[in-house]
């Protein structure tokens, strides 16, 4: 089982997904700081930050969606590899290929439906309860993150087909 050849893999994808993951990291640090300060404010200044849960939820979407393409690019998703030897080379090859095809399809549906939700949320001007943050950007981030994830998967399919190699 050789890892996918570095030459066949566009370095640009690595860099782009890494940049997004770094952004996700910054958001995470921001969130740590925010909740940290909120706790201090509650105990020291006796004044809780109102609606902080809505900020946390919004930023969480950003963190997950920005990190997802990077995680997918690095094959960071948990999988059971116990049967790898038993299913043989052909099994591994087709498994890699078809699992990505199915995943691509389902994630594409997800991107499309998220897009519809985005339009819907804009049309009806849906906002969060306390801070009145608009909802549609949440869906926008889902469209972007899952969309990039689809892009990474499609590239992986192309590489598998071109090189006939199995993924890590």
């Amino acid at each position: 089982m050789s890892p996918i050849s570095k030459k066949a893999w566009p370095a640009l994808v690595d860099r782009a997904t890494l940049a997004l993951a770094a952004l996700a990291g910054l958001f995470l640090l921001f969130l740590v700081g925010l909740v940290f300060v909120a706790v201090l404010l509650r105990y020291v200044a006796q004044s809780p930050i109102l609606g902080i849960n809505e900020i946390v939820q919004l930023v969480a979407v950003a963190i997950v969606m920005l990190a997802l393409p990077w995680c997918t690019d690095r094959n960071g998703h948990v999988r059971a590899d116990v049967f790898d030897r038993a299913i043989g080379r052909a099994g591994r090859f087709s498994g890699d290929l078809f699992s990505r095809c199915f995943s691509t399809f389902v994630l594409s549906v997800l991107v499309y439906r998220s897009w519809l939700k985005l339009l819907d949320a804009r049309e009806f001007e849906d906002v969060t309860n306390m801070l009145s943050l608009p909802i549609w950007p949440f869906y926008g981030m889902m469209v972007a993150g899952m969309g990039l994830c689809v892009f990474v998967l499609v590239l992986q399919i192309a590489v598998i087909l071109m090189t006939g190699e199995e993924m890590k």
Partner: protein
Amino acid sequence: SELKFANFMPPANPYQAGAFEPFAEKLAAATNNEITVHIYAGGELGPGPVEQFSRAVDGVADFAVGLPGYTASQFPVTLLTELPGVIDEETGTEVIWKNIALFKPEFKRAVLVSLWSNADNVLYTREKPVRTPDDVKGLKIRVPSRNAGLLVEAWGATPVSMPVPEIYNALQTGVIDGALIDGTGTKAFKLGEVSKYLTVGFDTTISPFFIVMNRDSFASLNDEQKAAIEEIGKEISVTANAVQLAAAHKGIDAFAEMDGKQVIRLSDEEAAAFNALADEARAKAIEEATASGIAAGDVVSALQAQ
């Protein structure tokens, strides 16, 4: 065919046996078993109250039960019913249905089946007995909706928003000093364990509930079946309100019976001090809603006229 009914509440919640199962039974009986409803309780079709309206709109479920307060921006008119001093818990549902045409348009992404007013929200406090607006000043109080937030602000307290399941820990840890929720909180969310006082008898918000149906699912029915759903939906609104009122009153009584706990029932005089502030909050909410282009004053007058 069998229709899916999404109930995010646990199967033991009084609504399940008291309102939702009767809804399914009546519908089956009225349509000669052409429409059967399977109730998925405990959030089996998707957890939590927040996304329930979405689930019916998008078709995860054919029916969904939820609270407009969780997605307040979608239901500005319906939520006028929850303002203090607009309807009361005994007759509220009836009043809502006399004016149902006012609210239906807000549910147009789905089909409104049932809509009922809840029991009055009451105030659970962790340590401080609340009898006057001065007692409540500066306390951090969990509120179920934006309108409840206005009320709490008018009292001089600080509103805090959080999902219902987190109230217990937050009260226990002192993240909040009190919580505004209906009397079922004593049992359903064990708030009796983490609060010493329960104040009732003032004008507060009354969070409404809805049952909605997916539009395509509704459209696929024949006229007779549609009529049955409309009629039974209305009937169940009244039933559900009665179920909730009974449970809430039981919750308040249960609180009173717990060791070292006290229910503070405000006298008319004591309540008046709060109600004057509540009137301010209502006026402010109406003003805000009017500013956003809703004939809020007319709606409230229509509801109060009943």
